[in-house]
């Protein structure tokens, strides 16, 4: 058994197992830090800086999602410097991206006291919706470049590597290669990128259409947990049903079979189950 690690979080001594990240240690100390790009089943991308904390002796704020706890560290999760950083992260993202379907960004803005209009009036990410197939839609006006989709498509789950970040600086964007439409790309339409997207930039076609029509009503949607009926892997499915129609399929992130990931048949191949109604 390796020696456990002791550190101080906001003055409170916390003992954690070796390899624990500062984010997890803060959660254990019940001083949770906000996150945007971090996801329980994905490698930290250190992209969003929402989770930064102050570390004594460190010149810069550190990303708690990936920085591993060390003995004797002194961490502050709510210092003025940390709060200011969070606020500016939220304000910058809100100035470029549409956060209407991004609950975690809305929450970050709220807890940091961000002013959504502080940087308003400059360049934005606004762009036409890319609706090139009938399974999912890319509304990159909502993208915050958190990299979750890239990692889910890559070696954290799907290992298809159909998408990556292309471009530099403000022109950086998620791309399926040479600006191609999805059906012409390497995409296999598993929708695992959609499952991990925190902002609705990637969204199922059915949900997108129902939202456009004003028909997407969370209070009318029931979610039932069942098992996929295709191959023998036994993926847990959460069927989201509106007016007796399956309108979305997800899987729990903590499920030992799926870790929230599905294949194209499990996520989108449900039409047969209700084909009598079409």
């Amino acid at each position: 058994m390796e020696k456990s690690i002791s550190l101080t979080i906001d003055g409170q001594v916390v003992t954690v197992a070796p390899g624990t990240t500062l984010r997890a240690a803060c959660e254990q100390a019940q001083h949770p830090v906000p996150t945007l790009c971090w996801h329980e089943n994905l490698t930290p991308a250190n992209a969003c800086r929402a989770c930064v904390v102050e570390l004594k002796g460190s010149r810069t704020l550190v990303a708690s999602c990936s920085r591993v706890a060390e003995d004797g560290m002194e961490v502050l999760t709510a210092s003025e410097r940390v709060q200011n950083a969070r606020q500016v992260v939220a304000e910058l993202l809100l100035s470029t991206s549409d956060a209407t379907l991004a609950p975690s960004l809305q929450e970050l803005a709220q807890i940091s006291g961000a002013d959504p209009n502080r940087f308003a009036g400059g360049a934005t990410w606004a762009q036409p919706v890319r609706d090139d197939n009938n399974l999912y839609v890319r509304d990159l006006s909502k993208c915050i470049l958190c990299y979750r989709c890239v990692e889910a498509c890559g070696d954290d789950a799907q290992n298809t590597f159909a998408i990556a970040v292309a471009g530099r600086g403000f022109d950086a964007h998620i791309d399926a290669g040479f600006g191609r439409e999805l059906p012409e790309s390497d995409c296999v339409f598993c929708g695992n990128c959609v499952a991990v997207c925190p902002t609705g930039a990637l969204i199922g076609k059915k949900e997108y259409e129902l939202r456009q029509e004003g028909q997407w009503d969370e209070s009318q949607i029931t979610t039932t947990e069942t098992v996929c009926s295709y191959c023998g892997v036994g993926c847990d499915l959460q069927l989201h049903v509106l007016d007796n129609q399956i309108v979305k399929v997800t899987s729990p992130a903590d499920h030992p079979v799926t870790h929230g990931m599905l294949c194209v048949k499990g996520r989108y191949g449900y039409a047969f189950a209700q084909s009598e109604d079409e």
Partner: protein
Amino acid sequence: MGLTTVFGSGAGTSSYEDFHHTSFILLVGSNAAEAHPIIFHHIMKGVHNGAELVVVDPRKTVTAKRAHEHLQIAIGSDIALLNAMAHVIIREHLYREDFVARATVGFDAFRDSVADWTPKRAAVITGIAPERIEALARRYAAAPTAMIGWTLGITEHHNAVDNVYALINLALLCGNVGRPGAGLNPLRGQNNVQGGGDMGALPNRLPGFQDVTDPAVREKFEKAWGVPLAPEPGWNQTQMFDAIEQGTLRGLYVIGENPIQSEADSGYMRALFGQLGALVVQDIFLTATAEIADVVFPARVSFAESDGTYTNSERRVQRVRAARRAPGQAQDDLWIVTSLARAMGYPWPYLDAEGVFDEMRQLTVNFRGMTYARLEEAHGLQWPVPELDHPGSKVLHERLWAPEVAVKAPFMPVQWAPPVEMPTPEYPFQLTTGRRLAFYNTGVQSNVYDHPHKIGEWMEIHPHDAKALGIVDGEVVAVISRRGRVEVPAYASSSVMPGTVFMTFHFPDEVMTNVLTIEATDPLSGTAEFKAAAVRLERLVAKAPMHA
């Protein structure tokens, strides 16, 4: 089948998470990236953690492209490869002598059976160089832990069970079973293949793989059910088909299957089903088989409109729940079966799925500790779960590592036999079949949703063959076997070897691939050789037979 004979239960011995922490993964006849995508996620986690992945497959599949090494073997030559690996491991004393001595029987006979399976001999059959076979054998034997996974590339052959035995022999030789990160794992092709077997939907088994020929087992069930049970095993599917042909089986009740389109040699199937006196089909759709039935019972969609459980490829029993109302007169499978029994004069009570499950688990040790409440709480449980406080079993057959092994695992020596049909001058190509990622079986489920890559069926042919025959991409060609003929667009693809063509049976309404395949079945498992049929190709424009 093979696993039951050697280990007493027909199920994968590991958990998916064992792929994460193993040293070596050998996939044989499995295109997991397309056929079992989420298991492939687990496999790739292991690869990223440092495991070596070797894929043995006649096709350069998506899975093979992600492997450290791909052995593109000749179709149906698996036993030659596996026996030669065993030959090398024994010759060079690389096997786990302690494990073999303590936990297995029949080693001497097995050693003798592979004595003349030199890598040189196997190379001629498999097309894999002797040095590569030797190197693979050494790496498999040297790995501290190794997982073997297989799918229909192993089991859809006329010698399917022998193929499985050859894999088991290799694992026994190196002690790669019954430990974390070491096991034998058939990746099940259908959602509840495992659960069907678990529940005794096999001709010789009762729930929990209990043997119907064992008088003590029968007595237990007879007492619980209050009826005498026939001591002889029933027929497997192949035997049923034979019995229909001979006129001894005249009525058939088909639940959730579409054999007219899914079975090999479907022209023969259709004629065979025409001989039945009564055909009853229970399905959610009016399938091709339902269309010729005398009576059709409309069923509910099992995963979305009714309650129950499925068992997956890691023995995890999970709850299935109704999420929506079924249309029209569609009824639960359980309700239909019960009503049918009642109409025939048996006063079965109308139990719900949980009631049936509770009765079943009282009669089987494997499931006794599973309640619906526990299944719901734990994201399913992996059998065996013998008591209510048992956490489930991640690894099977740990008993083989006890100091004293009561029931030892037998080696099952097997010899290679070629596919029933090999190419001839008249039928110069080998047709092999399989799945594509976005689609599934006869397409009853998968052809309804709007996938951007849905262009119907196509045949993959090696670019050299296509060029030699003058076939251009997308050209519709005739594919002809001894049993039938279909027309299908052909596309050049280097995923198949020269002399081989690949098709699926996902679009039977347009391209009935299974009129070509051969009803050559394994005598033990009853599985047909979907993976190898000799065909010839004819260009429709040239109207002349072509030769490779």
